[in-house]
């Protein structure tokens, strides 16, 4: 078992998520009823997708850390509601979603160019993007606004045909990742993350791989913004720092190394599930709001410590 855990670090996150799910059902039996699933999945989707979105940048190594994931998701949210779903907007989901995803990919590509071509440290490049986007968001949505009723968004927050909308949105990035895992890009990404100088000597176009990784993250973040919009049906022009932090916590909990080159999208998804189930558990146990932060912190630390205890013999380099 311990050997297994060492090679498949995401197994721990999977076990923790399962344990928390069972705890949830025990605390509140209605949690597991199929009728609640669409709503649960819709609430999980934004967390899960921003966590997946911050993964490619981290995998690409060199201290890659995309702080601008939260603002990109919120930008997608305000652009959807203020422009694309307005009276003179495009309306249709088939047009609106690709537009925001392209927008996210473009911002991600900009981050990637700053990091890989202009050689900025990724923290400072994406922090600057964070500040700029925060300003842009405040300009686009100076006041909160609700989405018009009865659009495709309502379906995405509940059911799209026979499938829960949240599941559909989470599946999007996963399918893209699965398709990419059959290409050279996927292997090159892990090679670059493992050691960029070696990858460069081996003839890999490191800059191209990194730009692609960041733009992939940006595109995923925009999907997260769509999920957020489907959940709240209004503009959420604040609190994007929180999304970035939750995403990073989920990635770390999933077992992806911040040094790069190890981990994956599924691990981050499981990490996000852990954090989401922790929060629903706190709600189900009716923890008073004053204690919420404290208990959340304890659970987070306890979670990683238990995980790490199982993996104590993890190879060196994990402290970075």
């Amino acid at each position, binding site marked *: 078992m311990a050997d297994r855990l060492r090679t498949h670090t995401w197994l721990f996150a999977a076990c923790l998520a399962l344990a928390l799910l069972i705890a949830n059902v025990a605390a509140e039996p209605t949690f597991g009823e199929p009728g609640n699933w669409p709503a649960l999945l819709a609430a999980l989707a934004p967390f899960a997708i921003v966590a997946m979105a911050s993964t490619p940048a981290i995998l690409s190594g060199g201290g890659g850390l995309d702080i601008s994931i939260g603002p990109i998701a919120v930008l997608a949210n305000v652009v959807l509601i203020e422009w694309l779903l307005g009276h003179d907007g495009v309306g249709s989901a088939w047009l609106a979603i690709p537009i925001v995803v392209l927008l996210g990919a473009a911002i991600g590509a900009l981050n990637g160019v700053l990091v890989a071509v202009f050689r900025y440290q990724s923290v400072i490049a994406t922090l600057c993007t964070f500040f700029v986007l925060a300003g842009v968001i405040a300009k686009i949505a100076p006041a909160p606004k609700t989405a018009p009723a009865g659009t495709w968004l309502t379906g995405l927050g509940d059911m799209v045909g026979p499938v829960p909308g949240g599941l559909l949105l989470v599946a999007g990035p996963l399918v893209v990742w699965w398709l990419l895992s059959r290409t050279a890009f996927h292997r090159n990404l892990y090679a670059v993350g493992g050691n960029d100088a070696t990858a460069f000597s081996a003839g890999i176009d490191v800059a191209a791989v990194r730009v692609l990784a960041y733009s992939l993250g940006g595109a995923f973040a925009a999907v997260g913004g769509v999920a957020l919009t489907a959940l709240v049906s209004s503009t959420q022009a604040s609190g994007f720092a929180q999304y970035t932090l939750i995403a990073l916590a989920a990635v770390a909990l999933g077992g992806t190394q911040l040094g790069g080159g190890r981990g994956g999208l599924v691990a981050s998804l499981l990490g996000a599930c852990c954090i989401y189930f922790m929060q629903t558990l706190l709600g189900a146990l009716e923890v008073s709001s004053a*204690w919420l932060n404290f208990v959340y912190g304890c659970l987070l630390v306890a979670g990683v410590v238990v995980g790490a205890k199982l993996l104590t013999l993890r190879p060196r380099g994990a402290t*970075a």
Partner: protein
Amino acid sequence: MSQALALQRRAPVLQLLALVVLFVYGAATIEGFSSEITVDSMLVLAALLGLAALGQTLVLILGGIDFSVPGHIAMGAIVVSELYGARHWSAPLAIVLVAVAAGALGAATGWICHRWRIQPLIVTLGIGAISAGAAIAWTQGHLTGAAPPFLTTLTTATGTTFGLAVPPVVVLWGLVAVAVALLLHRTAPGRRLYATGANPRAAALARIDTKRVWVVVFSASACLSALTGCLLAGFAGADQTVGDPYLFSSLTAVIVGGTTFMGARGDYTHTVVGALILTVLTTILVGKGYGQADQQIVFGVLILLVVAGYGRERRLRDRV
């Protein structure tokens, strides 16, 4: 040329140049920019930012990252106000208690990260939530007390120190900066910190107790954040969100100063200049009459331009 490069490697020369250029530009184009009261208030803001970024600097040199800064700041501000204002403790006792509590939490952070080789990112997120959460739970979210008045005197821009027309907190900051510079460059513990940050394995083989380094650095970082929280309680009053702006601004100050994310480069003198650059920049943007949103956009772009001069990575082909 090589002498100039060597100098830049040792001291933040280009950073200082950027600071002077920004200040001269502000003084030339904004009326009253170089007046005593404006300079004093800029110095107070820079001092608070700089003190909040001190712990972050040490942790970055060690090769980690500290996301518990806002949590400890909020804890310090809330606890000192509650103890002094509502429970009538003596001010020094309240401050000592805050420092000890934060120091213990920080030591736990360092110990956990080192013992199980967990990424500091997620542990500091958890401990930060525990720290602020415990303070909020203890006061049940109702904060009635006010900070000791001498903390307010320390942080007013019109304050004087022993007859000099400099706010006391600025003098304090200057003393701390000199002490930290001496500690980092002229003492054995400082060299142990750099050695551990550069290569933990090599440091351990050189018989450095790396666990102690981790525990002490994280403990110091938490302690300093909480003490900054006490100062902020006197400066602006305490509430649950008082630390939030310092999450990313402390990180920005450290990196704009020139300390890098992957460890063992830079020192606190760099961060001091970084904090001054950020404060002058913000003051210029406010003085030019930009709105909040425009300020953030221009701020993000300008930081990229400033850092372009000195804070970029080496070319990949030079590292092969």
